[in-house]
C-alpha cells in the first residue's frame, strides 16, 4: 500500500510563494498527473515529495508513514528526470543496477532484476553501452528502467517525455502507461502537455499559481472544468466564452439568444462551450466566420460573435467561407457557466 497524502504543503522561495497550502491524496496504484504551465509549482511539489526540496510547512505521508523529514533514499521513491540523468561514466547495466548495488543486493539478484526491467523497456541489447552512445529515446528508456529496477512504492516523473520528438513521445506515452499499470506502483507524473495528461492519467491535478485548481478524472476535467482557468488551459482550441445577462427564472441571454442556465442571483455570468460541441442549425447563435482552417479530420473555424472570438470545430465536409454568417446551435448538455468575478464554475 502506498497511498500518498499531501497535507497543507506550502513552499516559499524568499518572497515568492511557489505553493499555497496544497492538500492532495493520491490513492495506491493511482496514476496522478500534475498539469500546469511552467512556473505553476508542479515540479516544486514533485521535488518536495521526492525530498529534493524542503517544504516551508506541511506534511507528506507515503503508505501511512510521515516522510517529509527523511532523505530521498529513505522514502521508497524512484524518480525519472526531464534530462534523464543517466550516469555518463557507467554502462547501461550499471546505471540500471546502480540503486540495487547501493542496497548491496547480491550479484545474481542485480543481474536478474536489471534483465527483467531491461526486457520491459526493450533495451536488452544496450546493456553494455555508455550513455554517450545512446539516443535521447534510449536514454529515456534507461532512466525509466533504472527507476523501475528499484521496485519503488512510488515512482515520480518530472516531464520525462518533453525532450523527445513528437513521434517518439507518442510511442513512449503509450508504452510508459502500460509498463506503469503493470508495475502496480503509485505514479506521479509532472507535465505541461495536456495531451499527455489526458491520455495517461487516472486523475489530473490542474495547477495554477501554486494552487491545485481541480483534481479529477481526465474526462471530468475536460467536460466539467471547475474554473475558467481549467476551461481555457485544457482543450485545443480551448473552451469558448460569451457573456450572459439574466432574464430571470434561470433564463440567460447570450448574444441575442435565450438559454436555460443556473437559477442564481448573479448580475451576469459567462456562457462556455467547447468548439466541438457546436452544430450548424436553423436556430442558434449568429457567428461571422473570419478564418477557415481545414485540418483534414475536421474544419476549424474562427468566428466572431458580437465582439468575442469564437472557435468551432465542424465536420470536414462543411462548406464555409470567410465572411459567411453561420448559425450555430450549442449541444445543450455541454453548456457550462462561470462566474466572471470568482472565475469558478456555476452549476
Amino acid at each position, binding site marked *: 500500500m502506498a497511498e500518498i497524502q499531501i497535507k497543507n504543503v506550502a513552499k516559499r522561495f524568499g518572497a515568492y510563494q511557489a505553493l499555497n497550502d496544497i492538500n492532495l491524496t493520491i490513492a495506491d496504484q493511482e496514476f496522478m498527473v500534475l498539469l500546469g504551465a511552467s512556473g505553476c509549482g508542479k515540479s516544486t511539489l514533485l521535488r518536495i515529495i*521526492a*525530498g*529534493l526540496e524542503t517544504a516551508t510547512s506541511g506534511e507528506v505521508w507515503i503508505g501511512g508513514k510521515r516522510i517529509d523529514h527523511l*532523505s*530521498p*533514499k529513505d522514502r521508497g*521513491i*524512484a*524518480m525519472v*528526470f*526531464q*534530462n534523464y*540523468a543517466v*550516469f*555518463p*561514466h557507467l554502462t547501461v547495466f550499471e546505471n540500471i543496477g*546502480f*540503486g540495487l548495488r*547501493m*542496497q548491496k543486493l547480491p550479484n545474481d539478484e542485480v543481474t536478474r532484476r536489471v534483465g527483467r526491467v531491461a526486457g520491459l523497456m526493450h533495451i536488452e541489447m544496450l546493456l553494455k553501452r555508455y550513455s554517450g552512445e545512446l539516443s535521447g529515446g534510449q536514454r529515456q528508456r534507461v532512466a525509466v528502467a*533504472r527507476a523501475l529496477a*528499484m521496485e519503488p512504492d512510488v515512482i*515520480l516523473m518530472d516531464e520525462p517525455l518533453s525532450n523527445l520528438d513528437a513521434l517518439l513521445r507518442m510511442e513512449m506515452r503509450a508504452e510508459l502507461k502500460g509498463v506503469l499499470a503493470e508495475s502496480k506502483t503509485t505514479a506521479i507524473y509532472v507535465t505541461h502537455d495536456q495531451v499527455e495528461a489526458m491520455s495517461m492519467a487516472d486523475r489530473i491535478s490542474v495547477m495554477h499559481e501554486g494552487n491545485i485548481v481541480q483534481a479529477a478524472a481526465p474526462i471530468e476535467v475536460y467536460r466539467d472544468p471547475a474554473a475558467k482557468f481549467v476551461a481555457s488551459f485544457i482543450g485545443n482550441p480551448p473552451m469558448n466564452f460569451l457573456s450572459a445577462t439574466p432574464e430571470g427564472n434561470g433564463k440567460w441571454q447570450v448574444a441575442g439568444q435565450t438559454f436555460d442556465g443556473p437559477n442564481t442571483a448573479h448580475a451576469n455570468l459567462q456562457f462556455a462551450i467547447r468548439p466541438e460541441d457546436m452544430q450548424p442549425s436553423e436556430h442558434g447563435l449568429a457567428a461571422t466566420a473570419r478564418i477557415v482552417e481545414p485540418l483534414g479530420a475536421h474544419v476549424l473555424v474562427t468566428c466572431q460573435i458580437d465582439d468575442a472570438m469564437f472557435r468551432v470545430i465542424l465536420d470536414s465536409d462543411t462548406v464555409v467561407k470567410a465572411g459567411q454568417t453561420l448559425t450555430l446551435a450549442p449541444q445543450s448538455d455541454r453548456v457550462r457557466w462561470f462566474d466572471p468575478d470568482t472565475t469558478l464554475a456555476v452549476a
Partner: protein
Amino acid sequence: MTDATAVDMSTDTRKSGRILYVASVVFLCAWVIVPIYFLLINTLSSPETVNSFPKSFIPEFDFGSLQFFAGFAGMLTALKNSVIVALLTMVMSILIGAPAGYALSRFDFPGKGLFRLLILLTRAFPLPLLALPLAVMFIQTGLDDTAFGLALVHTTLAIPFAVLITFSLFSGIPIELEEAAWTLGCTRLTAFTKVVLPLILPGITASAIFAFVISWNEVFAAAVLTIENRTLTAFLLQNLDTSPLHLKFAGGFILVVPALIFIFAVRKYLFAMWGIANR
C-alpha cells in the same frame, strides 16, 4: 561584371585576413618558442660554443653542462625538496580548493559574490610585502626552513586556481545526476564519491598538476623562507648568480622543462577555467 568584382574583393579580404592571422600565429609562437629553443641549444652545447659567436642553430648534444648539474653538491637534495613541497602543495590545495569550488557551484549563500572576489584578491598582495611578516611568524612557530611551511605559502598561491578550476568542473556536472543518485539510495557523500568524483577526476588531476607547477616555479617565498632545505628554484637562484654562462643556461633549462610538460598536459582544463570552450 559587378558580381565578379564583388567575388574578387571578398576573396581578397579573406586572403589578407588569412595572411594577418597566420602572421600573428607565427609571431606569437616565435615569441614563446625562440627563447626556449636558444635555452635548449645552449644547454646542449659545450661551454666554448656557448661563449663563442656567431651562434649555431643546431644543438651539439653535448651533455657536459647537464652532467655537471647532476653531480653538483646539493642539487639532488634541492630537487627532492622541490618535489616534496610541490606534492604537499598539490594535495593541500585540492583538499581545500575542491570543497570550496563545490560549494560555489552548488550552494547559494549570502556573500557568494564577495567570496569569489576575495579568492581572487589573495593574488593581489605581492609576496615581497608579506615576506617579512611571514618569515617572522614562521620563525616563531618553527615552520621556517621546512617543506611543510613553504608548501603552506605555495598552497595559498595555488588555491585561487584550484577553486576556480574545480568550480567550473562542478558546474559542468548537472545537479540532476547527483539528485538521481540521492533518490537511488546515495547520501550526499556517496553520491559525490560514486557519481561526481569519477566524472571530474581528470579535471581534478589537471588542477592538481597546475598547483604542482605553481609551487615548482615559485622562487621568492622559497628563497626567503628556506635556508638549509632549499627548493630547486631557490637553490639555482643562489648558485647560478656566480656561475658561468653555460651553467646558467642549463639551470634555466632544468627549471623550465618540467613546468612546460605539465602545463601542456593540462592545457584543456586551463582553458576551461578561463571560460574558453574545451577543444
